[in-house]
Each structure stands twice: as C-alpha cells, then as structure tokens.
C-alpha cells in the first residue's frame, strides 16, 4: 500500500546522458514518509481498537470516501451536487439487494453498484451540459428528494418500506479476523485507493483542466478544453466512487433501509465536504468524522439536535473559514509556528 513513487518526481535526463533520478526534496520525502507511516498506522488500528470503535470508524471512512467523490465534483470541478446521498443509496442497495435476492457475493455486488452508479451519474450529469451552479444543485436535490420514494415503491428489489435484512459479512475463511475488523480493513483500503485516485486526477494536466472549468467554462472552452466531455466524465467517475462508498457503508451498517438515504443525508454529505474543506483529502476525513461523531453527542439535545449542530457548524465555517476546517487549522498552525520561530 505504498504511495511513495509518483511519476512527477522523476527527473528528466541530464546533459551528460546518465539520466540519474534527482533526489526528491527533503520536504517532499518527509511528507511521503509521513503519509506511508500514517496509512500503516491506520491499518495497525485494526488490532488495537474494539469492534465497536472499528465499526464506527468504518462508517466514517465510507462516508469520507463519498465526501472525496463530492470533492472531485464540487470542490475541484465546481459542479454542485446535492444528490450524492442518493447515489450512495444506489451503490448500497445494489450490493445488499444482489446479495439478499440473488445470492451474489458482496465483492461482485460492490462492483455492480459502482457500474450502476456510474450510469446513474452519467444521466444525472447530462443536465450539467446546459446548467451550471444553483440550477444543477436544484436538479440533483430533486433526485435526492424522490429517491427514497422510489426505494419504497420498488418492493421486489428493495424490500419496500421495511428494507432488506442483511448481516455484516464475515472475514474470508482463513483470516483470523472478526467481521468488524475485516470491514474496517476493506473500507480503509477503499478510502486510501480513492484518495490516491483523487490525487492523481486533480494534479497535473487533468487537474488544471478541472480548475479551469471551475473558474470559467467559457475560458476553459476557449483554451481548447473539451468542457462537456470532461464534465460528464467527472460526473461518472464521482458517481462510481460514491457508489463504492455506498456499498462499503452498507456493509458496515448491515440492513438496507429507505430512511437511510433521505434528502437530509445528501445534505449532510455536502455539509461534511464543506466543513472539512471541499479541496482537501484530510478535510474529507474531518468532515465525515464530524457528521458521524457529532450526532452521538448532539442527540442529547433532542432527536434533531445533530441536524441543528450541523446547520450551525455549516454557517460558522462559511463565515469564518470558507476553505474548510482542515485548511484553516493548518493555516493557524503555520501562522503560530512562524511567530514562535521569529521570536
């Protein structure tokens, strides 16, 4: 699971033709080493934490993966989706429904969910060819509003109002792991892969094209960027990742219920993206942790306490730290350290 070599770090050939690789700068090296250590440490958590905490973490990671998919679409490309909760629902229901109704093993179900979601994302993305900004948000919000109604109606496949009973799968035979440990490893692997894919997409040539589209579609088109094709592709890729996230989320929580994927769930996902920072991988983790762990405490205030807390947090972030909590805290940290060093 090493992410330590990327092609961008390779040097071009030198004048004498020996073509040595330049040594990456010390800063880049320490970053990469830090990242590898963090990922290894995260996997090591499997054996250090209780099953309950692990399953909570698995839920957080699955949501973080969904937030990453939203980052790609909304943060980097500037296409606002309020329907990613519903896309997660498609992925989740595909996995569970195939397992329950047809006995399909869940890895295949996850894959099927991704494909299905990709198709749904492609269709949902079509309006983005003509619409931008708030109008696109409106269409995707509409999709999020009708989605639970569709789930309730399509009973043979979705189990209707009562949903589908499903048990969190066990670890494959020979592995001495509990179910919670196994699901945690799966979701962590999913998140790391997603984060890696996102980084590859948003840096370099593609990344520059995406941010050009975000800043001004007209300018992007004038510079020869195939705006429409890229928008559709991004929508499809983002939906695929959301579908995978939905499948993993469903594996972590078990039974599939239509009330999981209501419109507020979609809004919460967008809230997580904004609170963490829409262009930050760490932010996706922070945001997902926020919407998973805050409700545990806020529900003491009442049934919809969590929702109120999220609403207040959203407003505060928009007013005080529009780049998101993750960036605001690194900024604050470097500000403080630079002052300390100066003294």
């Amino acid at each position: 699971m090493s992410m330590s070599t990327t092609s961008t770090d390779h040097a071009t050939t030198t004048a004498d033709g020996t073509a040595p690789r330049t040594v990456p700068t010390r800063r880049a090296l320490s970053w990469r080493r830090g990242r590898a250590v963090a990922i290894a440490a995260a996997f090591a958590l499997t054996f250090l934490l209780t099953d309950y905490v692990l399953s909570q973490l698995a839920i957080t990671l699955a949501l973080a993966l969904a937030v990453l998919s939203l980052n790609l679409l909304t943060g980097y490309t500037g296409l606002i989706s309020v329907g990613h909760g519903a896309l997660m629902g498609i992925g989740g229901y595909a996995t569970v429904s195939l397992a329950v109704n047809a006995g399909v093993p869940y890895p295949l179900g996850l894959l099927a969910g991704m494909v299905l979601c990709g198709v749904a994302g492609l269709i949902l993305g079509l309006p983005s060819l003509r619409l931008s900004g708030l109008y696109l948000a409106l269409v995707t919000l509409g999709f999020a509003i009708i989605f639970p109604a569709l789930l309730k109606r399509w009973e043979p496949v979705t189990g209707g109002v009562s949903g589908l009973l499903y048990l969190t799968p066990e670890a494959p035979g020979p592995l001495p792991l509990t179910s919670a440990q196994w699901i945690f490893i799966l979701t962590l692997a999913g998140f790391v892969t997603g984060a890696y894919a996102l980084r590859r997409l948003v840096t370099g040539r593609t990344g520059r094209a995406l941010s050009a589209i975000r800043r001004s579609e007209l300018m992007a088109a004038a510079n020869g960027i195939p705006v429409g094709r890229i928008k559709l592709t991004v929508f499809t890729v983002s939906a695929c990742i959301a579908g995978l996230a939905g499948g993993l989320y469903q594996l972590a929580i078990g039974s599939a219920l239509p009330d999981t994927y209501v419109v507020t769930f979609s809004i919460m996902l967008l809230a997580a993206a904004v609170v963490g920072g829409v262009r930050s991988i760490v932010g996706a983790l922070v945001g997902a942790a926020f919407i998973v762990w805050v409700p545990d405490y806020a529900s003491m205030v009442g049934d919809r306490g969590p929702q109120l807390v999220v609403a207040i947090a959203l407003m505060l972030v928009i007013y005080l730290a529009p780049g998101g909590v993750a960036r605001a805290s690194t900024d604050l940290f470097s500000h403080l350290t630079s002052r300390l060093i100066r003294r």
Partner: protein
Amino acid sequence: MIDLLQQIFAGLANGTVYAGLALGLCVVFQGTGVLNFGQGEMAAFSTLVTWQFLSMGWGFWAAMAAAVTLSFLAGMLVERALIRPVEGSEELSLLVVTLGLFLGFNALMGMIWGFHPKNVDSPFGNGVLDLGGAVMTAQQLGMIVVIGGVAMAVGAFFKLTDAGLRMRAAAESPDSSRLLGIHVGRQLMIGWGLAAAVGAAAGAMSSPVVGAGPDMMRATILMAFAAAALGGFTSRLGAVVGGLVVGVTTSLAAAYVPGLGGDLSLIVPFALITVVLLIRPQGLFGRVDTVRA
C-alpha cells in the same frame, strides 16, 4: 368528466400554495441571486407559529396575521444576519447557507413542536360548492381566493407603489440604485421579509389540508421549485402561473397515470424541473441573461 373537473379543482387549490412559495423564491432570487432551499422549512416554521397562536385560543385569522407579521420580521433578520455576509460570494457558499437554513429550521421545529403533524380546522368550515356535479370544498375555494389575493397584492406592490419600484430597481441594478440614493441592503431585507410572509400565508392556508408539522413542506418545496423553474426564476407572474400549472399537472398525473399516486407524484415536478431547465432554462416568462467570461 366530473372526476376530471374534480382533479383540476384540487390541483388548482394545491397550486396556489406552490404559487405562493414560488413567488417567495422569485422575489428572493431576483434580489439576492439566491435560490433559497430553506424557503419551505421557513414556511413550515411560520405555520407552526400560526398553530401555536391557535392553540392559545386565538381566532384563525388573527393567528395567521400574527404569524405573517412575525415571519416578515424574521425574514428580514435572516437576510441581514445570515445572507448579507455571503452576498456576492461563490455559488457553493450561497447554496450551503440556505441548506443550513433548511437543516436548522427543520431541526428547531422538531425540537420545539415534535414531529407529529398537528390538526388545524379549516377557517372556511366544511361546506362544499356544487359546480355542475363536480364538488369544490370551501377550503379549496378559500385557499384559491386568499393566496390569489396575497399574490395579487404582492404583484401590485411591486408594480404600483414607489417602494415596489425601489425594490425592482435595487434588484435590477444595485450600483445605479445606490447612486440614486436607494438603500439597496434595506430593499433586499424587505424582499426576504416579503418572501417569508407570503410563505407563512401559504403555509397557514394549506395547514387544514396537510396538517402543521416539520415535514409538511418537504414535497411542496419541490413543487414550488418546479413552478419557479417553469415560470422562470426572474418572473413573479411566471411563478404564480407555474404554480397553478404544476398543481394541476401533478393532480392529473397522480390520478390518471398508473403508479404515479402517493409519494411518487413527486416525480412530476422533478421531471418538469429537469425538462424545463434543459430545454428552456429561462422558463416561460423569464429573461435570458448573457454571460461575459
């Protein structure tokens, strides 16, 4: 035939509610360029305030008038305190603030009044009007008359009064208005106040039918967005016409298209929004904006 008329009446009555909310959406959009996704929850909140006054023994009209007045003030406050700081920033910030309004008002309602819809007695009694076999309830007729009246009053305010002219000017070109001594910020506040007040009236009028509760506007707001999209987000007349069209279309589709009843009738406004925005993004009555890169 009689059944068809019946469905059309029901659709028109519901349509006035959509028209009222859509009118609020338009006034806000024209002024501040914000699609207020929290409009429905704000209206539901106002409706529960109406219910609160009713439960204290007030008469229906007094309770509604009080709630409408309070909503006007609250709408102004929301604009000044929550929208003004993000005015002119990127679309995502605007959207997120209104989604915050959605979550926040919804949560507050749940915490104050609980989740069960409250029954409200119709102020028009239980009478029915016989129109050649088809029946219209007094409640339906009352809704059409009252919300129609409110919509016309708002329209007249914008077209006929000086204050309305100032508001149109501020929405049309804020910079020139400022040079002419118009306090643009104040106009925007009044716009949000008006939107909240119209929403409160529409909510109170529909509460005898759907009950007053935190989730009463969940479906209605989608209908209102469909209405505003159909009419064009920049046209007040369009919003009202759109509301009636959406009301009747949904009612007919739910009755005559197999499988579209109940929850699934929401597909109608969703399809309308998508199709209208794709084919004619400016709506039936709206203006086309040219964009400069």
